[in-house]
């Protein structure tokens, strides 16, 4: 009964149907702790490889494992649905970047960096997405909230830690290399670009 192939199918069924991130501990419970974590990892690795040539893939995330569709097929999948997923404005993405790269950070610090007052809708959007959270208060007048990104943010970007974020661009070089490159237009046009930029 408990042979490798059987265990593998059970894990596969669990990971595919869970609709959530599944960690090793949960899988251990499924097998009533009769299978070691190393063995589980080995099998998960094998499952992961099995899906190399498929339309979906298994992600290792900070808090466990989860299957997702491969991003390169998203433009097709979108055609199944009448509404297209929302894209975030530059203001939202800039705010998110500041929180991601400078966390923990106050609203005031975000405003200083961007040079504009922050619209509370922007923060609200990020809260609602579950990507940011309040992690404390700064010892300043008004005790401003300190914002940080959540593990959900990492999950939704398919990464395990902040270190996997693209490194902050080197300022001098970046500035020089991009003179022929209009950053303003970028966001408006990127709708169809995701596939190309791979």
């Amino acid at each position, binding site marked *: 009964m408990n042979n490798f192939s059987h265990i593998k199918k059970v894990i596969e069924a669990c990971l595919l149907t869970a609709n959530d991130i599944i960690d090793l501990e949960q899988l251990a419970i499924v097998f009533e702790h009769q299978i070691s974590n190393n063995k589980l990892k080995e099998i998960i690795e094998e499952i992961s490889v099995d899906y190399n040539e498929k339309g979906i893939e298994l992600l290792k995330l900070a808090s466990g494992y989860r299957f997702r*569709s491969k991003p390169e097929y998203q433009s097709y999948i979108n055609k199944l649905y009448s509404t297209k997923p929302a894209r975030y404005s530059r203001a939202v993405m800039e705010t998110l970047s500041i929180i991601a790269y400078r966390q923990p950070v106050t609203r005031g610090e975000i405003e200083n960096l961007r*040079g504009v007052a922050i619209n509370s809708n922007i923060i609200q959007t990020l809260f609602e997405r579950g990507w940011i959270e309040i992690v404390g208060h700064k010892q300043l007048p008004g005790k401003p909230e300190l914002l940080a990104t959540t593990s959900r943010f990492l999950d939704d970007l398919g990464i395990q830690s902040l270190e996997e974020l693209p490194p902050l661009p080197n*300022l001098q070089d970046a500035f020089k290399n991009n003179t022929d490159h209009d950053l303003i237009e970028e966001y408006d046009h990127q709708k169809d670009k995701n596939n190309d930029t791979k």
Partner: protein
Amino acid sequence: MSQSPIILNQQIFTDLPEDLYIPPEALKVFLEMFEGPLDLLLYLIRKQNLDILQVPIAKITNQYVIYINAMQVLNIELASEYLLMAAVLLEIKSRVLLPQLRSESNNEDDNELDPRQELIKRLIEYEQIKQAAHNLNEMPQAIRDYLWIDIMIEESEPELPQIIPADLQKTWHTLLLRSLNAQQEHHIKKQELSVREQMSNILRTLQTNGKSNFFMLFDVKLGISYVVVNFIAILELGKEGMVSITQDEEQIIYIELAA
């Protein structure tokens, strides 16, 4: 929102630097493209291929102020940050033009006080965040760029309880035991009936034998349940006033028909 800003962009980009006249709507759209004064400044610097570290502050200030003035003349609502930046730029410009303020030695302390350096630092930091935001935006995002797998579980409703035949047997067992207890209650009811019956028997005996010693009314050979029923019957007869129960000086109990 998306009233083809790209075309407007091209008009703006070709027309603006030399001839600053642009149609009011275009100017408004132009402003909307920027995330704030830093963004607009970066655009102006980049547009002219200027080195951010050596920004000719007078030139860039002039351009910036011209845009801001144009928008104010046209009553385009302008965030206060844009006006503040205009003031900052003008101040830097005036200070840079004053030789005393630019110390020849150019030591570190002066650098820190140099308002131009402060502006450049902010511009660079903002440029960095802009690019980081761009890179972040390029990363696959759940929902926008991929979906989590969502597969039907075979039995999506709450799992129904399973039973096996043995469960039924066990339940039946329990039921039987309980009904056995219930039957014992029936026994008692039966006993009640038998009490009534025994009451009649006692009355019959008393009618025949007259007053009787309490113990003479018991036939212990008939077993404990008979004794109990008989005893209850006597008490019941007494309670209902059908017999009188008396006791003499020697503690002997006598039962006789009620008068």
